[in-house]
């Protein structure tokens, strides 16, 4: 996989079958959050996020604010799907989350990080809020 592959969970690397399953689910949008939001997420983000506000989808380079693909922050917290209802709920947790896409399909970008550990912590936090969040690597 050229410049896009799951890092979440080394399971992907260790167990090709798991990768195939995730990829297939992603492609057909059958993951839990792709269509409807779990009831638990309706009260999303009652808990404080980890990392003391360092979740971000933008960086400042001089006078320019960079949005979208941030090569220096390659670990991306992603929520598969593109449903507007999910995006609205996710934005209660991460205000600048947005819809984007990869070869495996559309997803909601919920944060970019320089370290896998930070990304994983945020993904876990979002999962605790009801989102099917995982970490992908996009150098």
């Amino acid at each position: 996989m050229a410049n896009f592959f799951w890092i979440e969970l080394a399971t992907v690397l260790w167990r090709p079958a798991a990768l195939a399953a995730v990829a297939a689910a992603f492609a057909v949008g059958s993951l839990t959050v792709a269509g409807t939001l779990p009831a638990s997420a309706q009260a999303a983000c009652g808990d404080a996020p980890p990392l003391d506000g360092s979740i971000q989808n933008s960086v400042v380079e001089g006078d320019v604010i960079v949005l979208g693909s941030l090569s220096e922050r390659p670990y991306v917290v992603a929520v598969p799907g593109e449903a507007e209802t999910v995006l609205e709920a996710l934005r209660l947790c991460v205000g600048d989350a947005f819809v984007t896409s990869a070869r495996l399909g559309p997803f909601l970008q919920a944060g970019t990080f320089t370290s896998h550990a930070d990304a994983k912590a945020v993904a876990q936090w979002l999962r605790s809020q009801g989102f099917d969040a995982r970490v992908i690597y996009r150098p």
Partner: protein
Amino acid sequence: MKNRAVRKTKLARFGPAILSLQLGRRAVLALGGLGLAAWAERVIAQTLPVRVDRWLEVRSLAGTVQFTRQSSAQPARVGYRLQSVGEGLRTGHQSQAVLALDTEVGFVSLASNTDLRIENLSATASGGRITYLRILRGQARLQTRPFTNPDTRLDVETPAGVASIRGTVYGLTVQPDGRTGIATLEGVVVATGAGQSVTLNPDFQTLIVPGQAPTPPSPITNDVSLDLRSLRVVGGNQVELVGRVDPLNILMIDDQVQTLERTGQFRLQLPLPADRQFIAIVTTPLGNQQIYALRVP
């Protein structure tokens, strides 16, 4: 070059609603009602236009700035004077210009991709200076000192309405569809659209949609943020760009001014650039700008 006032023509074109602005707020309040327009016409008919030298002088330039007259255009230079009806200035991409009003009463700063044209430069018998400018697109910021002559006025017309001032600092944006955002920093601006006016006190703003009355004044935002909701490749070589900016702002993406919905939302589908990046510039009515690099994942 002498300039002949054309107030009668302006009367015919813009009608009593704008005339009422020329009389000042106290007169309007004192008179009110349906008799105002007729009274205004009588008063103005008694005020004979006079010949007088009037101009806007180019004080500074950056980038590509054209001096326009009718359908012709030529590069502008510092020191050029715009003196006749129909003459104007057009700024290009990443360009700007500053014009000084004669008598140093004020300055007009034009941001990039802005068209300004003179509609009227004249004087009243009482010594008042009438300046009527038209901005077809872009962003301008005006800064004037308080007018000492009550007949002096400076009006800026856009496709959506008119902003009238009496000594102030304010700015405006003109969208491709004519929608006009006006924000006041100092002094008072009267914004008129569809025959209705609102008064903008310092730190207030309004939006005029062509054919509609100005929105009620609201506290100034001067917000340059860009709320991105979607940035993704669709159909192989197209990019879906969805987001929102303050509806009073101008959004330019790769040198093209984009038409916003009334809420400030935009939904675009653009060819995927070779470098997978768009440059977006958000400009407020007061001229504040923020540059964004939108890098397509």
